[in-house]
């Protein structure tokens, strides 16, 4: 009585426990890689489609009003943004691969944004756009998350509304130029249809009032 039955058993338990523990992280990293590759593939496909459509009507005089891929792309943009946010959470904000995909995503958004504006002008469509500038730094994240949820809700209620999200802290020339262009100084800030700016405490009534005025 009062003795350790088997020191070897403790060692074996430690090894088995450690192996299972490590494998848990290995498995999730494998799935993360799959998610990352899947996202990258989709992003490449979407950007390819956008570039192809754009070249068709810019170089080969295709009728932009007949192009309808932008609808599918709009829905997918939302999914892309959220997937990138998930990867950012898991890999970390400073992961090079995720940063690259995030910048790439911003470029794809802007291409789409430009195309939508052209369609509105040339084809008499009435798509509404919101540029959403957010931050995921500790002091701003709660306000930005709340604004993001509000915009999701509004997008669900308005079928012709497209929301483009940009991280104001992203290290990219395009983002810096975009911020300068719209005078973005704080987050969250939204720009409705290129003109109407709302910053700070973003309220539902404010956004809906602006959308009604534009309509």
């Amino acid at each position, binding site marked *: 009585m*009062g003795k350790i039955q088997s020191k070897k058993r403790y060692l074996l338990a430690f090894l088995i*426990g450690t192996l299972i523990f490590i494998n848990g992280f290995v*498995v999730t990293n494998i799935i993360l890689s799959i998610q990352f590759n899947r996202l990258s593939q989709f992003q490449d496909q979407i950007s390819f489609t956008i570039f192809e459509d754009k070249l068709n009507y810019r170089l080969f005089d295709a009728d932009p009003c007949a192009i309808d891929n932008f609808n599918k792309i709009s829905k997918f943009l939302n999914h892309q943004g959220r997937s990138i946010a998930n990867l950012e959470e898991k890999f970390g904000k400073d992961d090079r691969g995720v940063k690259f995909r995030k910048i790439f995503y911003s470029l794809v958004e802007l291409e789409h944004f430009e195309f939508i504006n052209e369609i509105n002008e040339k084809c008499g469509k009435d798509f509404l756009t919101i540029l959403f500038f957010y931050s995921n730094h500790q002091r701003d994240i709660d306000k930005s998350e709340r604004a993001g949820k509000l915009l999701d809700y509004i997008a669900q209620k308005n079928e012709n509304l497209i929301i483009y999200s940009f991280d104001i802290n992203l290290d990219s020339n395009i983002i810096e130029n975009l911020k300068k262009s719209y005078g973005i100084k704080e987050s969250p800030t939204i720009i409705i249809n290129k003109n109407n700016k709302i910053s700070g405490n973003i309220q539902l009534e404010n956004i809906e009032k602006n959308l009604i005025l534009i309509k």
Partner: protein
Amino acid sequence: MEFITIVIYTSIYIGLVATAFYILTFIADIKREREFFTEDELPKVSVIIPAYNEEKTIQLTIDSILESDYPKDKLDILIVDDGSSDKTYERASEYENKGIRIFKQEVNGGKGKALNKGIKESRGDFIFTMDADTIVDKKSLKTMTRYFKNPEVMSVTPAMVTREAKTIMQRIQSVEYLTGLFLRKTFAALNAIHITPGAFSAYRKSFFEKHGGYDEDNITEDLEVALRIQYHKYTIENAPEAPAYTIPPADFNSLLKQRRRWYVGLIKNTWNYKKLFGKEYGDMGMFVLPIAWIGIFFAVFLTIYYTVEITHNLILEILFYNSINFDVFNQIEFNVYLFERIFFQVFTTPAIWFILIFLIMIFFYLRYATKKIGKTESLYLNVPIFMALFAILFGIWWVVSVFYVVFNREVSWK
């Protein structure tokens, strides 16, 4: 990495190592040979049933002992009515013609006092203590007594399971007790059992004669005896093939009161027997007890943390939904992308995989339990309820108990 993430994964890591150790111990113990009393060697045993206001259940309890296959000439049954104000004494008295002895305490003095009275009046060399709402399988007495062949064994514990599972709380406890069977057997293999269930356990009478009876001022006198046995370096065995069925509390409040008494008692008694931690007490002192208390610490910490976190998030959510006039259905876009995102969100969280591993372990614990005691009802319904709610309840019970100890609040029996 956030501090809470470190805490969670540290607790998971410790849980994995501990689980691996207990499984290895269980496997090693399968080959171990034990000595058992033969049929002829079975000694005289006394079954002491202390009872306070148990008129509804006491006859079933007595009947289950009378139906036992233990040799009747070696079976001594005593009822100690602890000053009941109902008809417990009268119900018990109906069995006097069957050789059952009944003692009446004029004043309610508590379970410890009633048990000590029973020990004093007992005629057997071995004592079973039994709650007046417990019933046992007919082979349990014999199965448990056999273990006392080893002179170092001072106590034998049964396969403690629940009698009925009608309410949600009872269903949760039903699974909890079943999963405990595996652990109790493993603890016995390490001689690390530190709780002998008050509902039904067996003791060598000479232990009480040498080291004193039950502590009459203790709210968990059964626990104190177990720790005392370990303190004196004797052995506590477990008989997983000896089922004993207890009635679990049916609702949240009565269950909370029970667990509060148990855990406050565990804290206070463990403090009194803190010498049990350490090298001197082998696997129990170096591993089983420290791991159990580390687990409790994590449970308390995580319960407090997530209560605050969830309350904070709930307030934010309510404020948000208030701002959109609670129009919930327009909040979520249901499409295949949503399910893909949920899938990746869930399965890229390592904790989910570890939870799956622990769920698989629970499945094996339950397989073991049902193999030992036979089929149990409604397992497929009870297990998901247990998975969903037990961890939360466990955290609440411990937080409340720690609060009672820290602020020195009194805990009564009922």
